């Protein structure tokens, strides 16, 4: 439960925050979690800011923009309830300040759901105050007034007044209780669910300084930081004297790591007057590494070991750790009409965001630091760097940047730590620039893994039993790598009468982390492919099989609006089937494949139409995407996320994998790690099943069903079941 604290700022505070002399209405809104309300009562932490003055309507965009469109979509939520004309709204990027703006994070598709209610309440409060101001000016009842397109309208007389002309009066009024104000119903929306273009589009097409890597500050030097090719290696010695004498080189020094491979690894810092001179120093640099405690992660041998484990123990489905057990699994298999077993593997992946890691840092007097990091978690960048430097958080200032891609890579702030440590040692402002090779070999990667699955079908061809043995990784034998732990109730497991989920854990040192739709982006492929194997074995239509499994509409677990809802799942499955022409006759070698996945509270079903030729080349003709994320905010942005997720899904499944050999990654640049290029994009048909459920974010959940939908279609088209990602491992291409 949450309640809202909406505060109006007085004239002095207004000036302080806005710099506007004319005065006007400045509202901040905070969400207070009732469980922590006592602790928070003394601090006012608004998570939305709205400013209305003679100059117009200004909405602050507080959440990090990584390409998911939140600089546009989240201000739209406030503008809708305010009843502002979008053309009248100016969006300004807010600074990084937890006290003022609450949580500022781009991750887990949470920015939209987290902002939904505070932004709506802020808009509704401001609208009520503007109506009241107009009513007083006109000496009429506020209930006789309405609003539209940034104006208050007196309904009977038709008089109108623009919000900007009411701001000063509104600022003198008390703030109404947000909870008492009626919010618009979905049918009343004029702005939401329309197509709005990005607020900063012009900067992007004209090449204006936009990203962290575009930042230039006076006296700035250019740095590179060279780390051991084997993660965890330490510097033993280096020819620093030779390097320092090179043209354009200012300094070279070694840094100890701080012991955390996701913060500051050991390495050699090179500082020069430009990037190219730093690169020249790097070419001349000779480092002797101490690799005694370095990673020796090796994917080919690890995958072979995982396959062995998947076969071990007779039934192949007995991992060391029991994750979940429900019902009588042994009985379900003993009495089964048919059983099916298969193992699926998925590779380690790089984020490969197009803007390589970089960060400008400027030392401040007193040991503080000013940073311009490309971060999905800028507030955590502040705390992490403060801890690293041993200074108070207040001595670290973070300037928000538009990110040249995130995909989860920039939840970690290693590049900010490196930049801060280098600038602190050099006592000079520096721009740290990673090469693509640094990026590929020092990523916090999407963990690969394997699932050994078994299913039991009863006399009626119904799924009566399920065993899943996941093989995943841990650096210390205890903590499973981020994004690598299968949840007990992942996806359809709650629907099956008898389930046993176990896990085996293999050692893996190299840091793993969150990659677009963490967990789900890997697990959807085995789980949704295997369900198709089962419906095929049962001789049932896959849609009918899935709908039967879903059963009556209900929340799983019960009464949990953040959980899988079988009704919503069935809704998107039916919609995807209808729009894709599920069941239609297709020529030989061409077929449809279906997959569903629930992630980030979003329900998504996809149908892929593919054909496969004799050389195992797959043409994806169309992907139909059916999505239930509640209401749609910016239709333009929502469609963009769906289109991008389909392309990203195809890109990842086709040929992407990181091959570790003896702790070293083979794929160091795009010549070895293939990102999909333009050409032969499938037709992407997007359908939203809009509802009044709270909104889910849309940056991630459309990706997981792509691979299983395509692979299920491939099976139906040519009879070959793909059980490894990337599909290039089985000789297929897209």
């Amino acid at each position, binding site marked *: 439960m949450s309640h809202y604290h909406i505060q109006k700022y007085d004239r002095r505070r207004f000036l302080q925050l806005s710099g506007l002399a004319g005065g006007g209405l400045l509202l901040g809104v905070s969400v207070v979690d009732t469980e922590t309300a006592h602790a928070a009562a003394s601090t006012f932490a608004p998570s939305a800011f709205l400013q209305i003055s003679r100059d117009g309507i200004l909405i602050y965009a507080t959440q990090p923009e990584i390409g998911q469109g939140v600089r546009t979509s989240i201000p739209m939520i406030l503008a809708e309830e305010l009843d502002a004309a979008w053309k009248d709204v100016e969006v300004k990027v807010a600074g990084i300040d937890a006290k003022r703006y609450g949580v500022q994070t781009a991750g887990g598709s949470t920015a939209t759901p987290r902002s939904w209610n505070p932004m709506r309440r802020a808009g509704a409060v401001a609208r009520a105050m503007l109506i009241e101001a107009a009513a007083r000016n006109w000496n009429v009842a506020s209930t006789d007034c309405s609003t539209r397109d940034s104006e208050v309208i007196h309904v009977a007389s038709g008089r109108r007044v623009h919000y900007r002309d009411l701001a000063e009066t509104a600022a003198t009024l008390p703030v109404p209780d947000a909870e008492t104000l009626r919010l618009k119903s979905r049918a009343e929306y004029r702005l939401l669910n329309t197509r709005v273009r990005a607020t900063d589009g012009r900067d992007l097409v004209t090449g204006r300084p936009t990203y962290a*890597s575009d930042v230039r500050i006076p006296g700035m030097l250019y740095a590179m930081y060279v780390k051991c090719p084997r993660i965890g290696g330490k510097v033993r010695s280096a020819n620093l004297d030779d390097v320092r004498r090179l043209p354009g080189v200012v300094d070279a020094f070694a840094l100890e790591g701080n012991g955390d491979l996701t913060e500051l690894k050991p390495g050699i810092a090179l500082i020069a007057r430009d990037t190219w001179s730093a690169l020249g120093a790097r070419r001349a640099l000779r480092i002797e590494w101490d690799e005694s405690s370095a990673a020796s992660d090796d994917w080919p041998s690890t995958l072979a070991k995982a396959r062995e484990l998947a076969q071990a123990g007779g039934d192949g489905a007995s991992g060391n750790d029991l994750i979940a057990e429900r019902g009588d699994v042994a009985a379900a298999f003993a009495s089964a009409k048919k059983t099916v077993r298969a193992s699926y593997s998925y590779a380690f992946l790089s984020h490969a*965001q197009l803007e390589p890691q970089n960060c400008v840092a400027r030392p401040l007097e007193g040991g503080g630091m000013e940073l311009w990091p490309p971060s999905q978690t800028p507030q955590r960048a502040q705390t992490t760097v403060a801890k690293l430097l041993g200074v108070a958080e207040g001595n670290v200032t973070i300037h928000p940047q538009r990110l040249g891609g995130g995909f989860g890579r920039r939840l970690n702030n290693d590049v900010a730590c490196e930049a801060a440590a280098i600038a602190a040692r050099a006592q000079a402002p520096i721009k740290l620039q990673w090469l693509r090779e640094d990026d590929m070999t020092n990523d916090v990667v999407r963990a690969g893994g394997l699932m050994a699955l078994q299913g039991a079908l009863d006399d009626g061809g119904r799924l009566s039993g399920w065993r899943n043995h996941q093989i995943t990784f841990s650096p210390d034998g205890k903590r499973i790598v981020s994004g690598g732990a299968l949840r007990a109730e992942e996806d359809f497991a709650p629907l099956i009468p008898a389930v046993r989920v176990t896990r085996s854990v293999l050692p893996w040192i190299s840091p793993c982390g969150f990659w677009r739709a963490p967990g789900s982006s890997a697990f959807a492929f085995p789980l949704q492919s295997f369900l198709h194997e089962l419906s095929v074995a049962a001789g049932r239509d896959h849609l009918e099989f899935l709908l039967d499994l879903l059963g009556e509409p209900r929340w799983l677990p019960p009464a949990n609006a953040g959980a899988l809802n079988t009704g919503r799942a069935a809704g998107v499955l039916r919609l995807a089937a209808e729009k894709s022409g599920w069941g239609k006759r297709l020529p030989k070698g061409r077929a449809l494949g279906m997959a569903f996945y629930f992630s980030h509270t979003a329900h998504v079903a996809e149908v892929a139409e593919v054909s496969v030729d004799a050389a195992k080349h797959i043409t994806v003709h169309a992907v139909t995407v059916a999505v239930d994320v509640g209401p749609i905010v910016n239709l333009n942005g929502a469609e963009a996320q769906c*289109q991008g997720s389909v392309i990203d899904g195809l890109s990842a499944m086709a040929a992407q994998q990181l091959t570790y050999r003896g702790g070293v990654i083979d794929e160091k640049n795009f010549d070895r790690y293939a990102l999909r290029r333009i050409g032969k994009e499938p037709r992407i048909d997007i359908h939203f099943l809009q509802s009044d459920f709270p909104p889910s974010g849309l940056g991630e959940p459309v990706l997981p069903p792509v691979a299983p939908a395509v692979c299920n279609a491939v099976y139906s088209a040519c009879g070959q079941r793909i059980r490894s990602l990337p599909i290039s491992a089985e000789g297929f291409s897209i």
Partner: protein
Amino acid sequence: MSKLELNVNGQQQTVEDVPADMPLLWVLRDRLGLTGTRFGCGLAQCGACTVHLDGNPVRSCSVPASAATEVRITTIEGLAAADGTLHAVQQAWLEYDVAQCGYCQSGQIMSATALLARNAKPSDAEIDAAMAGNICRCGTYVRIRKAIHAAAAVLRARA
């Protein structure tokens, strides 16, 4: 080290102390402050650094600046008219709201404008060929294609 005279976006620029092998990309970004041309891979694999040399699209990460002294260099900053009027390709990019993260889009736009300068009505296959050197990690290809066709139509109508 040498002093280079470069013609960038119609202006003569003098750049001091340039190593003979320094790529044009880093001269533009670090020495001239033209950061709209972006670094992605350093291997001419991704196209984020695409600029025009005499109207031809090249990957500036792989061309030494010293080889560009006799040509007209155009970067994304020089594409719009002096009065700020956008090129038809830039305008189409806005109309189709192409960008997601946006980092690759300078390079995409430079490749697209070069294509349309020599081919008034490119087919889908011709678009594929001309744009194959530009990676978009966000997967905006559907909209890139639409925007190129739309810009081509605008430019044809003007001709």
